[in-house]
């Protein structure tokens, strides 16, 4: 059973609001990721981290920011939400090494109105 949690599961918020999507894992994994998922589109990597104090931008340009102060926690923040940010956001974690399995949270479906 994967131990990676995302909150909230669903969020509807107004334009201009600041939001933080939470992601926590209890597996001690060094690598953590944020993906954006839209219907019919590939999962786009927007942020990743190799460990504490490590954050990198992914392949898809994003106005969001992330932090990695603790191994288990990798929150994603949008300073000013816009309707274009409406999407599903998936958090994942894995051990170091390209051969390792990524464990995914259940996702946060964000709607900005």
């Amino acid at each position, binding site marked *: 059973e*994967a131990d*990676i949690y995302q909150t909230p599961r669903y969020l509807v918020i107004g334009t201009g609001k600041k939001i933080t999507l939470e992601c926590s894992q209890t597996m001690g994994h060094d690598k953590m*990721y944020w*993906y954006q998922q839209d219907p*019919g*589109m*590939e*999962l786009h*990597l927007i942020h*990743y981290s*190799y460990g504490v104090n490590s954050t990198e931008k*992914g*392949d898809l340009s994003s106005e969001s920011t992330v932090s990695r102060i603790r191994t288990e926690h990798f929150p994603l923040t949008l300073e000013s939400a816009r309707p274009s940010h409406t999407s599903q956001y*998936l958090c*994942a974690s894995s051990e*170091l*090494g*390209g*051969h390792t*399995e*990524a*464990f*995914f*949270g*259940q*996702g946060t479906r964000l709607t900005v109105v």
Partner: protein
Amino acid sequence: AQSVTQLDSQVPVFEEAPVELRCNYSSSVSVYLFWYVQYPNQGLQLLLKYLSGSTLVESINGFEAEFNKSQTSFHLRKPSVHISDTAEYFCAVSGIEGYQKVTFGTGTKLQVIP
């Protein structure tokens, strides 16, 4: 650079019929290959993976995939599908080196028809 192509966005198939979900990849380096499955309202979970050795890998629920290096493919097959196999399936690649990112395909929705 690496990329994954899943040509079929949706695959309808009758229950107990065989199915093949296609995946092709490109990469400038050697890769590991994965299939993930996403059931409705859930996150992705690993179905099977190819790291090395035998090119045919199997999952515990009857799926199998074969790595074909010459055709750069990693197609997923099942000889007889069940209703419970209805889900979205994602092919993914990761470079051999430890800091390589995982690249996913666009996914294939498998709809099993009773």
